[in-house]
C-alpha cells in the first residue's frame, strides 16, 4: 500500500474553515460564507487530485494510507490515527465534497437573509470535515470520531433555528435516537477489541478469517444497530422526519446525500464481517426490506414536501441496506445506488428549497400547484431527479435500483422471491408517491394561499440544482458502462462468482418498469385527473390515517420506551430523594442532635472540667492496667 501525505488536507481544509468562522465571530459575517465555500471546493480539488493519483496506479496498489500520529499505545493495544483512501472511500470523498460544495453555493443565496449565515456555514464546514474523517479513518475507532462528529453537526444544523421550540425538540430527538446507534458502534468496537484484539480495518479483516462466528455475529449485529441509528433504518427511523426542521440545504446534504448513508458505508466497509456472519447478514436484509416498505408507505401520506422526501430517503436507504445485506453480489450496487441517490435526492431537496423560497416558506404541497409555469428551471431539475428516483430508463435511478432488484431476486429460494417482490413493490410505491409530489407541486391546478407570488430562484440557487440534475441523468449510465463501478470496487469487496440467475435480467427490468408505470398511473388518476383538496381531507381510509402518523412510530416509541422510561426516572428520583438523600440527611441530623446534647456538658465551671479530666485519667490508667495485666 502506498502512502500519501496530502490526505490530511482533505479534512484539514474544511475543519480550518469551521474553526475560523466560529472563532472570528461577527467579524467574519461579511466573508464567512465565501471562505467556507472556497475551502469546501478546495477540498473537492484535493479529492480530484487523489483520484488522478489513484488512476495512475495498478488496481491492486490504488489504496493510499497516511499515518497521522500514534493515538493510543497501551501494552499490545496500538491505535494510530491514520487515514485510508481506497476505491470505496474515494467515491464518498468525491460525493461529500462535490455535493457539499454545490450545497455551499446554494446556501449562499438560500441563507442570504439569515442573520446567522456565518454560523450556518461554520457548521456545514464542520460537517464536511467530520464526514470526511468518517470515510477516511483506517480503523473503527477513527471512524467513530467522524461518526460522532457528523452526529454533532447534524444536531447543530437541525436545531439551527432553535428559537422555535419544536425545532429544538427535533434536534434533540435526532441526537438521542442517534445515541442508540452510536452505542451499538461502541459495543461493536469493544467486542472487536475483546475478541479480535484489534480495531483497524485491515487487522479486523485478517482476524475475521479465523475468528469465531459468534463473535463476528455479535460485532455484525452491533454494527447494524449503529447503521440503523445513523441511516434512519427500522427500528431507529423516527428521527429523520423531524430532522426536516433544519434549513433545506441541510436536509439535502446531511439528511439525504451523505450522513444518512454512513450506515451503508459502515456495512459495506465491514463486508468481511458480514460475509462470515450469515445471521447478521440476514438481519441486515430484513432491516433493509422493512425500512424500504415502511418509508415508502409513510411517503404516500405526507403533505409536507420535505417530510415526503425524507420518507423517500428512508426508503431508498432501505434499498441500499438491502443490497448491502445481499453479500458480495450486492455491495457494489448498494454503493452505486448511494451515489446516484446522492445526486437525485440532493437535487430534489434543493428543488424543494427553491419552491419554498418562492412560496414564502410554505411546505404544504396541498397549497402548491401549477408551479411549472412560474419556476421552469426548478421544475426541470426536480423533474429529472424525479425520473431518476422512480427508475425510468435511462436515468440514474433505473440502473442502480434495477441492479438491486435483480440481485435480490438472485439471492435464491424463498428469500430471493420475498426480497425481490418487496423491492419491486417498493419501486411501485416510490413511483406513486414521487408522482404525487410532482403533480401536487408542479402540474395540478393552483391552490395557493393568498398573497403568494411564486418566482424562479436566483442563479446561485439553480446552478447547483442544474449540476445535480445532470448527475441524476448521467451517473447511472456512467457507473454501469462496462460494469465500471463494480470492477472499480472489486479490490475492496472482493470478486464474487457468477450467481445463478433466478430470472433473466431483461425480465426483471421489464417487471420493474411495469411496477413504475402502475405506480405513476395510479398517482396521475388520483391527483392529476381529479380535484385535490387544499386542506387535508379528514374522511380518509384507516390506512391513510395510520400512514399520516408515520405508522405509529412515535406512538410506539412513546408508549414502549419513553413513558416507561419516564416512570423509571421518576422512581429513581424518588429513590434518590428518600433513600440516598435520606441517609445523608439522617447522618447530619444525628451529628447535630448529638452535638446539642454534648453541649450541655459545657457548664463553664472549671472544677467540673477538672473533675472530668481526673475521672478520665483514672479510667484510662485503669484500662491500661487491666489490659497489660
Amino acid at each position, binding site marked *: 500500500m502506498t502512502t500519501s501525505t496530502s490526505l490530511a488536507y482533505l479534512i484539514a481544509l474544511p475543519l480550518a474553515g469551521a474553526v475560523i468562522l466560529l472563532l472570528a465571530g461577527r467579524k467574519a459575517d461579511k466573508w464567512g460564507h465565501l471562505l467556507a465555500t472556497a475551502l469546501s471546493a478546495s477540498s473537492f480539488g484535493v479529492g480530484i487530485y487523489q483520484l488522478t493519483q489513484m488512476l495512475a496506479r495498478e488496481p491492486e496498489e490504488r489504496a493510499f494510507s497516511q499515518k497521522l500520529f500514534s493515538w493510543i499505545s497501551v501494552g499490545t493495544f496500538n491505535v494510530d490515527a491514520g487515514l485510508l483512501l481506497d476505491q470505496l472511500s474515494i467515491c464518498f470523498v468525491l460525493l461529500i465534497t462535490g455535493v457539499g460544495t454545490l450545497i455551499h453555493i446554494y446556501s449562499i443565496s438560500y441563507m442570504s437573509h439569515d442573520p446567522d449565515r456565518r454560523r450556518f456555514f461554520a457548521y456545514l464546514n464542520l460537517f464536511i470535515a467530520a464526514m470526511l474523517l468518517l470515510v477516511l479513518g483506517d480503523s473503527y475507532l477513527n471512524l467513530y470520531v467522524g461518526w460522532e462528529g457528523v452526529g454533532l453537526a447534524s444536531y447543530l444544523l437541525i436545531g439551527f433555528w432553535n428559537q422555535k421550540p419544536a425545532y429544538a425538540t427535533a434536534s434533540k430527538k435526532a441526537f438521542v435516537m442517534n445515541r442508540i446507534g452510536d452505542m451499538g458502534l461502541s459495543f461493536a468496537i469493544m467486542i472487536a477489541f475483546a475478541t479480535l484484539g484489534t480495531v483497524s480495518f485491515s487487522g479486523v479483516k485478517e482476524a475475521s478469517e479465523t475468528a469465531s462466528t459468534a463473535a463476528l455475529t455479535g460485532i455484525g449485529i452491533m454494527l447494524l444497530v449503529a447503521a440503523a441509528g445513523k441511516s434512519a433504518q427500522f427500528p431507529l427511523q423516527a428521527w429523520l422526519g423531524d430532522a426536516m426542521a433544519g434549513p433545506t440545504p441541510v436536509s439535502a446534504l446531511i439528511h439525504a446525500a451523505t450522513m444518512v448513508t454512513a450506515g451503508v458505508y459502515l456495512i459495506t466497509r465491514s463486508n468481511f464481517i458480514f460475509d462470515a456472519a450469515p445471521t447478521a447478514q440476514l438481519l441486515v436484509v430484513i432491516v433493509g426490506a422493512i425500512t424500504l416498505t415502511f418509508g415508502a408507505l409513510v411517503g404516500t401520506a405526507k403533505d409536507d414536501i420535505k417530510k415526503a422526501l425524507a420518507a423517500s430517503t428512508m426508503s431508498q436507504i432501505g434499498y441500499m441496506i438491502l443490497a448491502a445485506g445481499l453479500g458480495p453480489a450486492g455491495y457494489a450496487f448498494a454503493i452505486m445506488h448511494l451515489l446516484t441517490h446522492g445526486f437525485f435526492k440532493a437535487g430534489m431537496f434543493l428543488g424543494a428549497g427553491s419552491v419554498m423560497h418562492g412560496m414564502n416558506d410554505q411546505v404544504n404541497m396541498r397549497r402548491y400547484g401549477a408551479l411549472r409555469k412560474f419556476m421552469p428551471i426548478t421544475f426541470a431539475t426536480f423533474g429529472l431527479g424525479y425520473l431518476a428516483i422512480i427508475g425510468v430508463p435511462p436515468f440514474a435511478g433505473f440502473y442502480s435500483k434495477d441492479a438491486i432488484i435483480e440481485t435480490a431476486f438472485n439471492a435464491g429460494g424463498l428469500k430471493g422471491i420475498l426480497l425481490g417482490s418487496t423491492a419491486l413493490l417498493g419501486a411501485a410505491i416510490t413511483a406513486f408517491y414521487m408522482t404525487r409530489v410532482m403533480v401536487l407541486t408542479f402540474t395540478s391546478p393552483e391552490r395557493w394561499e393568498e398573497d403568494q407570488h411564486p418566482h424562479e430562484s436566483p442563479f446561485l440557487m439553480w446552478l447547483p440544482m442544474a449540476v445535480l440534475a445532470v448527475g441524476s441523468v448521467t451517473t447511472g449510465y456512467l457507473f454501469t458502462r462496462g460494469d465500471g463501478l463494480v470492477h472499480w470496487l472489486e479490490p475492496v469487496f472482493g470478486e464474487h462468482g457468477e450467481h445463478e440467475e433466478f430470472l433473466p435480467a431483461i425480465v426483471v427490468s421489464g417487471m420493474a418498469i411495469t411496477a413504475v408505470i402502475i405506480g405513476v398511473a395510479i398517482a396521475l388518476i388520483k391527483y392529476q385527473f381529479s380535484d385535490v383538496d387544499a386542506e387535508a381531507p379528514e374522511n380518509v381510509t384507516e390506512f391513510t390515517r395510520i400512514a399520516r402518523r408515520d405508522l405509529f412510530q412515535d406512538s410506539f416509541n412513546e408508549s414502549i420506551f419513553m413513558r416507561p422510561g419516564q416512570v423509571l426516572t421518576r422512581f429513581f428520583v424518588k429513590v434518590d430523594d428518600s433513600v440516598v438523600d435520606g441517609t445523608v440527611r439522617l447522618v447530619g441530623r444525628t451529628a447535630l442532635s448529638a452535638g446539642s446534647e454534648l*453541649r450541655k456538658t*459545657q*457548664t*463553664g*465551671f*472549671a*472544677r467540673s472540667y*477538672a*473533675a472530668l479530666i*481526673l475521672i478520665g485519667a483514672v479510667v484510662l490508667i485503669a484500662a491500661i492496667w487491666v489490659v497489660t495485666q
Partner: protein
Amino acid sequence: MNPYNYLYLAALLFTIGAVGVVVRRNAIVVFMCVELMLNAANLTLVTFSRINGTLDGQVVAFFTMVVAACEVVVGLAIIVTIYRSRRSASVDDASLLKR
C-alpha cells in the same frame, strides 16, 4: 530506707492535690493544690531516678520546677486580675464560658 515509701508519699500528696482542686472554690487554694500535684509528680521523678540510678528523672524534675514557676507567675496574675474586676476569687463565679 525503702525508696518505695517516697512513691506512697507522692501518691498521697497527688490525691490531696487532686481532691483539693475538685472540692475547693477559692482560686488561690485550687492553685496551691495544683502546685501540690506538680510537686508530687516531681517527687516520683526523683524517686525513680534514685531507684534506677540514673539522672534523667532529676533533670526532668528541674524542668518541671521551671515550668511551674512560670505557671505560677501567669496564673497568679490572672487570679489577681479576676479578683480586681469581680471582687471575688471563687472559681465557680468565673463561669462565663458556659454554652
